[in-house]
Each structure stands twice: as C-alpha cells, then as structure tokens.
C-alpha cells in the first residue's frame, strides 16, 4: 500500500468488514450499505487518481504489486515460448524474451523483467539489464526480421545495470547497438512502457513505430532521485525532480514523445491485472493489423522520421556564432 493510497484504506476496510459480516450471517441485508460504500470508494479513488502528482505516479510505476512483463505476456499472448541466451556470454534473467502469439499473430516479445520477491529481484537484478540481456533481445530482433514477425517490447526498468562488470562487457555498446538495430529493423516494432522507463536501459528496447504508455507509467532521462542529486544536490528533492522532468504519460503525450496513453483500471494496474492487459490488448490489436500491412521500407523510413523529429531547438541570433 502506497502512502497516498491510505485515505482509501479506511473505506476498503469497512467494505471488507461488511462482506465478512454478511458471510457470517447470510440473512443480514447489506446490499444498500455496501452499494453506498462502494460508490464512495469509486468516487474517492477516481478523485485521488485524477489528481496524482508526478511523484505519486513514480511510486505507482514502481509499485511492488504492479504487473510486470511476464504478467502482461501471460494475459496478452495465447502462446509463449521463452528463449534464452545471447549465444556469446550468458543468459540474463533481467530480460524476458521469446516467441508469442497475439490475436492469432506470431510476434517476438522482449521486455525488462522485475521480480516480486526479494530472491527473484536479486536474480533479475531488479530489472536492470546486463549487456548479455540486451544482446539476447538483439538476437531476437534479428530473428523477428528474418521471419517477418512484428516485435513487441515492454519497458520496465530503473536503468541498465551500471557495475564495473557491466562496463567490462560493454554496456554502452550493447545499448547503442540495440537502438541502431531497432531503428533499422524491417518489421513492425511496438514499444509499451508498462512501469518504469528508466534512461538508456529502457531506450535500448524503446525505438519503435509506436510507443504506448500505461496511464501511470513513467519514462525519464534519469530517475527522480538521481536528477535531484544532480540538480538539488539532495535526493530528497526527488518529488520536485519528478515534477520538473515531465515524466508522466499525459505530459509525454503532450510533448509528442509517445503516441498513446493506455488507461489503467481504477486504482492502478496493480489492482486488476486482467483489465490492465485487456485495455492494452484493445490498443494493440488494431495497431498490429495496421503496421503489418505496411511495406518494410516505409516502416523504416517512418520510424526514422518519427525519432528524427524528437528534440526541440531554436535559432540563436547570427551574431553569437
């Protein structure tokens, strides 16, 4: 339970108690009381979520119960065969990748994979990919192109793993090579930011024909904590940094950096995985149909132009130069 959700706790507790009472005494009539409480919960939830601060969204995006890549794959795909390894160095559990079927269509999927338990998170390095994880995804991107399969990527990472060992195996090179490959891939690529889109580690899976973003996901050049440490010299200013960075889905849609905000169920995706996945499927299916109808040359050209346009600039007075 996140701090800002506490105002709803009391209501939820009263509803639970009422339902327990009714179970104990089947003759009691709680229908009316329950309906009132539920209406109030809905209203207050809607109110709370309509006015989330950026920092609250960061917390939602990182919610320990938030659905992760595998949770979405499970619900979106009728078949999933996870494939392993980069054929060079290792297999990285921080990246999940494989072959799947979405609405009867074969696709390649790849995403950052966070754990839910501590042990699982240690194994998965909290979703922070090693170079070999990004290279596993790269291998599957190549496979997608070879067989003409569209690619779906799921972004959910605090960033790429930054240790000395990751530097030794060329973390920067892995990120750059993935971006270059995705930019030129001759098959449709759809990017979905499902939780935390953190920095270059996210962007290594983030170059696509369309970028969708879940309503409460965030996507940022740096974590609010890191930005606060740089800008305010104090990571306690993370909430300020979160606001300043404009990292929420609605902000990024306005900025033209993403294409679509996918609505989450009331109270956030972590309260209802199935609805979260169904909302995503609603967007995904027509998008796949549309993109798969395009010529590869056109796709690659349009993808280049799409990212080509990202970046504001202006003209200095000629005297300065």
């Amino acid at each position, binding site marked *: 339970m996140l701090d800002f959700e506490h105002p709803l706790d009391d209501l939820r507790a009263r509803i639970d108690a009422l339902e327990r009472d009714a179970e104990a005494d089947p003759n009691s009539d709680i229908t009316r009381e329950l309906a009132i409480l539920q209406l109030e919960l809905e209203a207050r939830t809607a109110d709370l979520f309509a006015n989330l601060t950026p920092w609250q969204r960061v917390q939602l995006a990182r919610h320990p119960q938030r659905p992760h890549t595998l949770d979405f794959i499970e619900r979106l795909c009728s078949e999933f065969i996870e494939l392993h390894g980069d054929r060079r160095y290792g297999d990285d559990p921080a990246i999940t990748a494989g072959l799947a079927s979405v609405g009867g269509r074969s696709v390649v999927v790849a995403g950052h994979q966070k754990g839910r338990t501590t042990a699982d998170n240690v194994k998965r390095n909290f979703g922070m990919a090693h170079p070999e994880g990004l290279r596993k995804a790269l291998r599957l991107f190549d496979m997608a192109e070879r067989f003409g399969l569209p690619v779906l990527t799921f972004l959910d990472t605090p960033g790429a793993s930054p240790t000395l*060992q990751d530097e030794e195996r060329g973390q920067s090179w892995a990120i750059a090579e993935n971006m270059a490959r995705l930019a030129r891939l001759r098959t449709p690529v759809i990017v979905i930011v499902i939780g935390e889109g953190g920095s270059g580690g996210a962007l290594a899976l983030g170059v696509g024909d369309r970028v969708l973003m879940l309503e409460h996901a965030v996507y940022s*050049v740096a974590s609010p904590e890191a930005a606060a440490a740089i800008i305010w010299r104090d990571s306690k200013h993370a909430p300020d940094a979160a606001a300043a960075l404009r990292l929420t889905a609605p902000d990024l849609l306005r900025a033209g950096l993403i294409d679509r905000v996918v609505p989450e169920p009331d109270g956030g995706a972590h309260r209802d995985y199935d609805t979260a996945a169904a909302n995503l499927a609603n967007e995904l299916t027509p998008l796949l149909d549309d993109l798969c109808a395009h010529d590869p040359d056109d796709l690659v050209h349009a993808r280049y132009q799409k990212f080509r346009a990202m970046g504001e600039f*202006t003209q200095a007075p000629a005297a300065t130069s």
Partner: protein
Amino acid sequence: MHYRPEFEASLRVCPACNYHDRMTAAERIALLLDDPPSFRELDAEVTAADPLEFQRPSGSYPDRVAKARALTTRNEAVVCGAGSLGGRTVALGVMEFGFIAGSMGGATGEKITRLFEYALRRRLPVVTVTASGGARQDEGLFALMQMARTTAAAARLGEAGLPYVCVMADPTLAGVTASFAAVADVIIGEPGATIRFAGSRVVQGTLRRRAPVEDHTAEWVQQQGMIDLVVARRELRRTVARVIAALAPHPAPAHAPSPPPRPAASPAARV
C-alpha cells in the same frame, strides 16, 4: 584556430607524463583538419530551446544556456561542419565540453543528426570527437531521445557504405558513449580519457581480471574489446586519415565538393 601556434608546440599534452589535457572544439578542429584551415561550419545558429521550462535552484535552463554561449562563443555543445582531412573532404562533429559539460540536448542532437544526413547526401565520411557528460537533464525525455535519433542517423551512414570514425576524448560518458559514439566503424580513444557508461553512480567492483591499467580509461576500455585503438594526439590526424582511406578507397573526387554554403534558417526548426 587562433590557438594554433601554442598547441602546435604542445597539443596540450604534457611532455613529461603524456597527460592529454582537454581541448576546445576549435583546437580539436585545427588538430584534425589539414593545413591551411578548411573548416566550414554548419548549423552554427542552432541552439537549445526549453521544452520543459526547466528551473534549477541556481536559475533557469535558458540562463544556463546563455552563460554557456557567453563562455564558449558557441551556441551548442557540438560544433559541426566540413573540411579537408588527409586531402579528402569529411563531415566533422566535435563536442565542446565547456558548453554545459558537453551534454546532449535537442539542439545538440539536431546538429549531430544533420551532420550525418549531410554526409549521407554528399557521400562523405564522418568523424566525430566526443567529450560529454551525457544527456542534458534539463530537457528530460527529449534529451534521452537524442540517443535514439543520433544513433539512427549514424546507422544509415553504415548502410550506405560510408565510413564513420569516432574519437572518444576525455570524458565520454553515459548517453553519448551509449549512442552515436559506440556505433562508429572504428573507435579511437585518447590516452587516459575516461570512457564509461555509468556516470557518477557508485559502482561496487571487486573483480579485476585483466586490468593492469586504471578502470574506465581508454586503455582499459580497449583491453575490454570496446575500442579499436588508443592514439596519441600527435598521431591522431594521420591515423584518422589512414582509417578513412582504408575504408573508402574510392572517395567522391577529393576537394571537388566546394565548402558547403551555410544553409538558410532551417524549416525543420520547431520552436
């Protein structure tokens, strides 16, 4: 260019310990291009916008940019243009570390992207010299996307069979290392230059397998297999010229493309 006499003697390299001091973009350009100076700058007027209306406690982003412009006499953290290198016209992009730590924002990315596109149109090799702290925080996700767009532009060059050489100078970090710098055909590090992905983060490294040199220096990064060569400044022009000659043995007739006219104010400018 006006620095030429003094660095001609020292190249900002300590004769005692081979320490390679940082250079300005102008010094770099003079170091790399042939005599007489042939550099024709492109897109010099492109400068940062403020898409996030970003405020630091120390002031607004436009204030920082204004200070950087005053300090460097440049409008952005990269200087782009064309000139003669080893008797052949190349497109050259040199980062200006003095401009907000060489950080990459939308205008920086725009200039680098235009440089690759310019080279593609004229079928020229590209040389970049990187010196950067990474993505420019003040532009938020716009800054991150410069990694994607500059890398995509570089990738098109390779498809067209045009060579691309990157010289990683001190420091080459984070969002620049991990984008257009890393995808060069041949990568040259300057002696002692810090080259790494993780910026100021604390890194707990214990394993030291193969490293008789200091972590994250160009020499170390070469040992890890990530860059091709570590080349002293005195040899840099010659080495870059040899690499380009080897990769593009049959260039578009040398000297033929006259120095490009500065383009009119770009219609692509969005702000």
